[in-house]
């Protein structure tokens, strides 16, 4: 009989501490700070175990909504910052493409790191509520925020056209590496969606 009473006394208190609004806000803040650090390529100071636990506890205590929107907002603002840095990249076709691809790689690496942190949310909350998974969210932000955004869109089309024209001039493969640029851009666009690739790659070739 004694064991019966012992148990009820030792009921779990974990739920109370983590449901506290301050804790929730703190956890959300920690995750958004991490998103910033990850985009800043400052990975070594990001403690995965801690962030994973915070994200997990938010989802477990039905705060998935807050976490999701916090992550979404943080990623969107980081992508905006990337666009800003791209806008100042040199006007020349080749260096622009190079810069764009480097930023793209940085973005995908960051998205994959963020995905790791919020893996639990991606696994449970996202399918349960029909949200866009974090990976697709990252692709969408890049597609709509960068590739399709006014200035960059035009410069990209122009740069690709120039690049292709130069390739034809130089023969099959001109300067080593320049062919890779177009291939890299195609790869990026394909990943963004089949329609996106058509949008950029076919229109110019048909017109020229």
């Amino acid at each position, binding site marked *: *009989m004694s*064991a*019966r009473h*012992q*148990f*009820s006394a*030792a*009921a*779990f208190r*974990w*739920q109370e501490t983590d449901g506290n609004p301050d804790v929730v806000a703190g956890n959300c803040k920690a995750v958004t700070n991490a998103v910033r650090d990850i985009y800043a390529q400052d*990975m*070594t*100071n*990001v*403690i*995965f*175990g*801690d962030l*994973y*636990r915070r994200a*997990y*506890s938010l989802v*477990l*205590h*039905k705060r998935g909504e807050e976490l999701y929107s916090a992550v979404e907002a943080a990623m969107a603002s980081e992508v905006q910052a990337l666009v800003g840095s791209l806008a100042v990249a040199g006007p020349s076709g080749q260096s622009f493409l190079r810069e764009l691809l480097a930023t793209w790689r940085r973005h995908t690496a960051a998205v*994959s*790191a963020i995905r*790791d942190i919020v*893996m*639990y949310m*991606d*696994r*449970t909350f996202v399918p*349960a509520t029909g949200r866009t998974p974090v990976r697709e969210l990252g692709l969408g932000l890049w597609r709509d925020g960068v590739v399709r955004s006014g200035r960059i869109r035009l410069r990209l089309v122009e740069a690709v056209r120039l690049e292709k024209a130069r390739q034809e001039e130089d023969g099959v493969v001109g300067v080593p590496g320049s062919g890779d640029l177009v291939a890299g851009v195609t790869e990026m666009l394909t990943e963004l969606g089949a329609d996106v690739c058509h949008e950029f790659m076919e229109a110019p070739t048909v017109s020229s």
Partner: protein
Amino acid sequence: MRIEDRKRSLTVAPFECVWGEEFRFAEAGRGCIVFEASAQNDVTLVFREQLGSQHYHYRMDSARHYTVILGSHRNKRLKIEVDGRTVVDEAGIGLCRLSSFQSYWISIYDGLISIGQGRHPNNNVLFQWLDPDPNRSVQYVGLSSWDKHVGYRNISVLPSAPQNSILWSQIEYAYAERHGEGGHTKNEEPKDGCEQRLISDFLESWDFSDAIFVVGTERKVIPAHKIVLAASGEFDFSSMNGSTIDLPSVSYPVLRSLLEYIYAGSTQIAEWHLDSLLELSLQFKVEPLVKRCEEMLYCLTKIGNKLSASSNNLQVSSSGSQAHQVGYFPFKAPVCVQKIKQFLASGEHSDINIFVTGHGLVAQAHKLILSLWSMPFTKMFTNGMKESKAPNVFFEDVSAQAFSLLLQFMYSGELIVDNRYITSVLVQLLLLSDQFGITVLQFECCKKIMEFLSEDTVCSVLQAVSSIASCKLLEEICKRNFATHFDYCTTACTDFVLLDEATFKDILQHVDMTVTSEEKVLDAILTWCMEASETCYWNSVDKLLSTSTPEQLFGERLTTINDLLPLVRFPLMQLSLLQRMEKSNLAKHIQLFGKLVAEAVEFSNAGPRMPTTNKCERFLHRRSSYRELQYISDGDNNGVIYYAGTSFGKHQWINPVLAKNITVMASSPNSRYTDPKVLVSKNYQATCFAGPRDDDGKKCSWWMVDIGQDHQLMCNYYTVRQDGSRTFMRSWVLQGSMDGENWTNLGVHEDERTICHPGQFASWPITGPSALLPFRFFRLALTGPTAGVSNNWNLCICFLELYGYFR
């Protein structure tokens, strides 16, 4: 609301089919549907990828689907069809019944179709069939019929959680196969974070590698892992230049074969390399491979095949052990599990120190092993964040005990827990395995928790489990347990106020809800809404309301009270009680309460003739409610043993032992003075006792009553009568039990001097929460010697009666 209704009951007309979003498996190809059905024949369920139409018919469907028919061929057979083709046709099982609703469950797990009876998946399996070509896309369930109406009710869709061991082995095997396929396409990241990996994924991988081989004249470098090598043979790292093993005379294909055999359990080798492979495995003492190579060489020479330079590839696999070695377990022969377990204990070859904040070092572990089980751990050690380089890793907010169990499981593949009082640790382990996506451990935890589930733990388990999406089955079982022990769970402690609204509401609506009186339901609802720290009775809440407003009392939960009050079945209460409620402050301040009470009073005044038109559940008796058998006076005719003598109200009283309605046993063998019939005969007997028996060197004397398999009693009073002797009992206990083995004390008496005359009656109430627990067996046992001069371990009573709530 409509969905709610449909969940409760629906009737399918002949040749029709009901579909709905609510009858959808969360995961394609895997799920379980639990339902009750009543029909003359052909309870038909269709499983397919998309929703079907109302006039859907499985014979006309060209898309892939499964059909399960209970009571096919005029209720004679069980049939399973795959895409319209009959694959199972078994006579005499899983039949349906028109007179009453029968419970069934059908579970589909990657083509393994299981059908069973009852409301608990994986219990009472009637039939199992494994589709050789599993249809992993089925997701929607259609409820259909043949030429007669079929009634369905209480339909719930659960995730398919493989529970029993027979199921396990098959599923695990399928699991392993799936992984085998994915083994070589490493770049393809598993979609699901909880996918588990195999050691073979780490073959020639630089991830976590801490040893290298340098082979051949070209000095090719091949990464390996000390823990894997050391667990399958003897690789002496100390003498071989730290972590480098230099093998200039060995060619790459041979080493590759050796490693593949160690990591994956099988390999291919060209015939002419077999000798060198044998030599290499001898050098490193990889015993199983040595044996296999020798066998193969022997076979080859026997056939007379010269060991020439033939380039035939030979298959070397660890002797069939793969088939019966459980598949979810990442370690396969030749990797020795014993050695792996030792490495956890010794910390040998470890590359990560695990700390739990507030406890300190928990273990010296291996990144490889942790990564095998869990994707988050893999990411933790590889994605370039702080832990990827650090030698120490810290975990916060976890119990060290639970974390140790997690590690033990990872290293041994078993969850060894035999103490039923550590449910709280198990719940934390369940949360941990959910957090780190270790599905297998999650199932194991659920299994153990279910095994140890008691009325005392159910509330805390439910609290934790309701937030984990993948533990629906355990949650369902907890809710049922809570509902069937509603009185106890809401009285013994008030942890239930911490449950969330949805869970509490589900319990209140549960079909198996069992209460002694509707007042208890009302009290529980009020307690929950007040978030009180002790049980409140409605009349005390009523008093509180005279000084404070409902807003002050109920706070945030005031709105919820309107959802919960309709679940109290006021019409089942006594009129006098209702009239008191009508005048109470509750009725004055809470509009709905007043309305419900008024409705019930009206119902009560109208008499029993009127209500037939009223189909609302509120007016129905609960399916499993208790009959109150109240103590009035010593030797009255109100107790359960008397009631059993009338076959529970069916006829005139006869001795219940003779009527075989109850069983009575004594600690000593039956004899002239130890006669079960006499104890329940209502007559005085001058000599009637149970003598002592020797139980582990301790004397014990008892009388035991079994009120039958289908009956339970929440005992709140009992009466005994002394026989003609002066051997008065002084220290004894009354105990109750559900299984006749584990006993709970109901009443404990020490040196109690009430009985002091031969033939005297004496009665005692049973107080405390244990009076709210239902039991089947009752035992009155001496715990100390009696007052008698001689034979002072004889339990001399000639009459016993029990009172309480009976069903």
